[in-house]
């Protein structure tokens, strides 16, 4: 929470520039719901914002344990927001485990709102506390607001005569009400949402509304301790337009549907559930009326093979998975490369190796995407930076896949996949179509005839008389398309497969510099979901007078055609990544530039401060 900008606002509210709030509680406590509603309301209030939901690995972890804690962080401000914030200004801790897990992230002086009612000795024990932190000195460095939220919520809904379990479940909404009061939010959209959600259970709806109002009223009426005030965060200057919240996986799904439309093709999406990719399948399964067929395959191999089969048949085949599942798809990816069929693959990265930490984010599949197959097997790799960009890059993947007859991997990650961000909704009507034209000329036909410019082979659609042909994973003759073991031909075909992919760089934008000059002392080169924290860090470094530029890659392969020249304009190159050093190696291999890694392999996004420290250190080194 920044220092107050002024105090001259309504109701004596302090005006703040930006605030970070973290809701934390047991996974049964409804923290995700509270966070999502706060987000909606805050967006409506005109702030810019970013969020970070953090789930436990278990479906329903035993109540009260530290590994069952669920968190939702929101950062909102009167200016641009790029990250969910390093540290919470306000922590809402609904039980001892939530306090235990999150306390170390709260800066000294931060505000902690605690549900005292959950600090029973049983809960304290489950959380691994040997003494009650509310009774000792451990919270002294913070501003603490202890409230028996359980009891107050129960009281607020008592008149409705619900069972005590159901009644107690409203405590998340009660605390939401309190925060609405504290940050001057309007309750009405949440009330409408609750009434719609529980339309079939009017008493539950009423209870939640009552709790929300009660929490709000508590703020208005109760005497709050010293240091706990009320705040106002002015509207941000946002680009005008219609906005919505969108998660990365939703955006990928919608982008794929849109890409199919723009290509004039039906889409077949074959997938096998895996965290954190499953929700792409879930979203697409609802889009059957968009010409999207979804197929839950028996495994990842069948999933990608079904997509390859669909593309052979003249549809746009697509699939999605996460690291371990993508590993399984390697062999079939090779088939798509060899048969030069369009294919869209979403890799929602998670912490590895192996099963790793499935619910945690990471950027460690870059090598796998670019180089992880048998043989010389080039394809195109894209990496959106934000949930909203996922929509754009899913469409771009469809365009490139069909235009160049190639698989395209879109590298997302658990962080963008689940994180919702406000997104200015584009107009679909303004988007350029890229209708596919299937090959139709029977004269001189063979299946590996190539377009001279793109080097893409023709796409003949089964069902077309006169174009009957056979393809497969064996090497093809350049000028006949038949199986060929000719040594020179294999060399030539390997080179043409490479040239086709490298040529895609001519069809995509040059690399821009996000912040700073086109040359200088230090370029910080990031990719994917770390955009926000890296951009913030570079901004701060520049405000400290350091000569630092920010370059953010979205075209991972082929890389932007000007990238080598651009990088050579900097004396030093620092590559922050959520992995053990992958992009920095690719840059060195491609451009022979002295890129250095800055790694964080913790299943968590970078904090701005971590990147900033890395920049300072690197400049001193």
């Amino acid at each position, binding site marked *: 929470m920044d220092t107050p900008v002024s105090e001259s606002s309504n109701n004596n509210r302090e005006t703040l520039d930006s605030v970070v709030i973290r809701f934390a509680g047991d996974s049964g406590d409804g923290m995700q719901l509270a966070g999502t509603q706060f987000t909606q309301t805050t967006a409506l209030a005109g702030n810019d914002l970013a969020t970070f939901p953090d789930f436990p690995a278990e479906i329903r972890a035993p109540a009260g344990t530290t590994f069952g804690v669920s968190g939702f962080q929101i950062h909102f401000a009167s200016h641009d927001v790029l990250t969910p914030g390093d540290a919470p200004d306000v922590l809402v801790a609904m039980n001892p485990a939530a306090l235990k897990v999150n306390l170390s992230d709260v800066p000294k002086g931060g505000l902690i709102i605690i549900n005292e009612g959950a600090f029973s000795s049983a809960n304290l024990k489950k959380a691994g506390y040997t003494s009650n932190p509310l009774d000792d000195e451990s919270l002294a460095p913070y501003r603490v607001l202890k409230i028996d939220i359980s009891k107050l919520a129960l009281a607020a809904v008592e008149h409705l005569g619900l069972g005590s379990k159901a009644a107690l479940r409203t405590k998340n909404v009660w605390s939401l009400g309190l925060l609405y009061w504290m940050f001057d939010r309007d309750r009405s959209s949440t009330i409408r949402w609750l009434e719609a959600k529980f339309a079939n259970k009017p008493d539950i709806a009423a209870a939640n509304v009552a709790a929300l109002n009660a929490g709000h009223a508590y703020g208005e009426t109760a005497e709050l301790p010293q240091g706990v005030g009320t705040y106002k965060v002015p509207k941000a200057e946002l680009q*005008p337009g219609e906005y*919505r919240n969108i998660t990365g996986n939703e955006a990928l799904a919608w982008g794929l549907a849109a890409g199919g439309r723009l290509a004039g093709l039906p889409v077949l999406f074959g997938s096998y559930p895996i965290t954190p990719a499953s929700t792409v399948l879930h979203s697409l399964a609802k889009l059957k009326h968009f*010409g999207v067929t979804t197929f839950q395959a*028996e495994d990842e191999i069948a999933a990608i093979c079904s997509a390859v089969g669909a593309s052979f*048949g003249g*549809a746009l085949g697509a699939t999605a998975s996460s690291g371990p599942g993508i590993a399984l798809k390697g062999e*079939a990816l090779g*088939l798509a490369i060899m048969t030069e069929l369009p294919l869209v693959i979403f890799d929602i990265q998670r912490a590895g190796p192996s099963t790793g930490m499935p619910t945690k984010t990471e950027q460690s599949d870059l090598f796998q995407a670019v180089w992880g197959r048998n043989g010389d097997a080039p394809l195109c790799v894209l990496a959106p930076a934000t949930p909203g960009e996922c929509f754009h890059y899913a469409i771009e993947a469809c365009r490139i896949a069909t235009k160049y007859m190639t698989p395209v991997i879109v590298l997302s990650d658990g962080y963008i996949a689940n994180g919702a961000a406000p997104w200015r909704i584009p107009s679909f009507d303004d988007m350029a179509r890229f209708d596919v034209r299937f090959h139709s000329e029977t004269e001189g036909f063979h299946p590996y005839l190539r377009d001279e410019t793109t080097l893409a082979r023709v796409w003949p659609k089964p069902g077309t008389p006169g174009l009957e042909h056979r393809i*497969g*994973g064996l090497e093809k003759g350049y000028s006949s398309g038949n199986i060929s073991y000719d040594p020179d031909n294999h060399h030539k075909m390997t080179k043409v497969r490479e040239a086709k992919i490298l040529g895609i760089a001519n069809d995509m934008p040059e690399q821009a510099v996000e912040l700073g000059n086109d040359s200088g002392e230090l370029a910080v080169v990031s990719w994917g979901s770390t955009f926000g924290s890296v951009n913030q860090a570079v901004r701060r470094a520049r405000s400290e007078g350091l000569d630092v530029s920010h370059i953010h890659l979205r075209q991972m392969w082929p890389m932007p055609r000007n990238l080598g020249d651009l990088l050579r304009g900097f004396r030093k190159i620092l590559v922050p990544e959520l992995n053990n050093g992958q992009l920095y190696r690719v840059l060195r291999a491609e451009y022979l530039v002295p890129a250095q890694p800055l790694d964080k392999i913790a299943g968590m996004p970078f904090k701005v401060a971590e990147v900033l420290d890395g920049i300072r250190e690197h400049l001193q080194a």
Partner: protein
Amino acid sequence: MPLDTPAKKLTKKDFTSDQEVRWCPGCGDYAILAAIQRALPEMGVTREKTVFVSGIGCSSRFPYYMNTYGFHTIHGRAPALATGLKLANPELDVWIITGDGDGLSIGGNHLMHLLRRNVDVQLLLFNNRIYGLTKGQYSPTSILGQRSPSTPMGSLDAPIQPALFALGAGARFVARGIDTVVKGLGDLFGEARAHHGTSFVEILQNCPVFNDGAWDGVTAREIASDTQLWVEHGKPLLFGKDKEKGLRIVDGGRRVEVVSVGKGGVPESEVAVHDETNRTLAFLLAQLQIPEHPMAFGVLYRDPMVAYDQAVVAQNEQAKAKHGDGDINALLRSGHTWTVE
């Protein structure tokens, strides 16, 4: 399933591609190829709507020799690929060609799911009880004790029985044929194609190079009438040169015994009658092995239900009927939005 029919009557030659056939001399695959090239024109299919999809193996080279659309995919994955193809383009007539290794070793899982889903394709499994292409290792259908480069002292794992496996997996059409019984094959192919859903056809195939004569005990011409029982729906289960032998079901349906029929034997009425819609009978028939029993051929089981691809198309249509043709602009604006001015 029949779709368009060609303008002019096609012949075997129309289905023969210009690629030189690259199987070993004497390989049983030649006969199967000829049988299908002969059978397709009979079925009145068009070349352009016909697709052959295969995995990897000697048998899987098949698509190259068919002058239709074809996809020689990767080892074991043809069923998965064909499923996507059929979902993308349900009007195509899709044939899967696989081997005992391709279909039952690496590809067993995809085969199982193809069968339970009942995708409307024909799957021909060339069973030579050996890995041909990789030079003769034993396969999941090899007999116990098979000597091969990977089992020099004999194999130790019990073979899978393809037809039994298919029934256990929920197949709705299970048939069996022999490479050299060309007429029988042609008929089976026709039945398979006519069936809506996955038609599973096991074909006993000889690999003269690595497993020569593996099926001789069943297929040799001299003994064929005693070792082969060709079943027909509604007909008694008779075999032998003069149909003088039959199968009687005993033990409350749990066992089958061979009986002499007619003079000196039992009356024909005691011989079991084939009911291709009965899965338990099919399970019984699929298990019959020489020398105790003849081996069963023809359509062992056929009990159609809705094909998966049809159901998918119908559900997609239903969604369209309900929501109208999807509107991307509306999708992007669904749920909660707000406007910044």
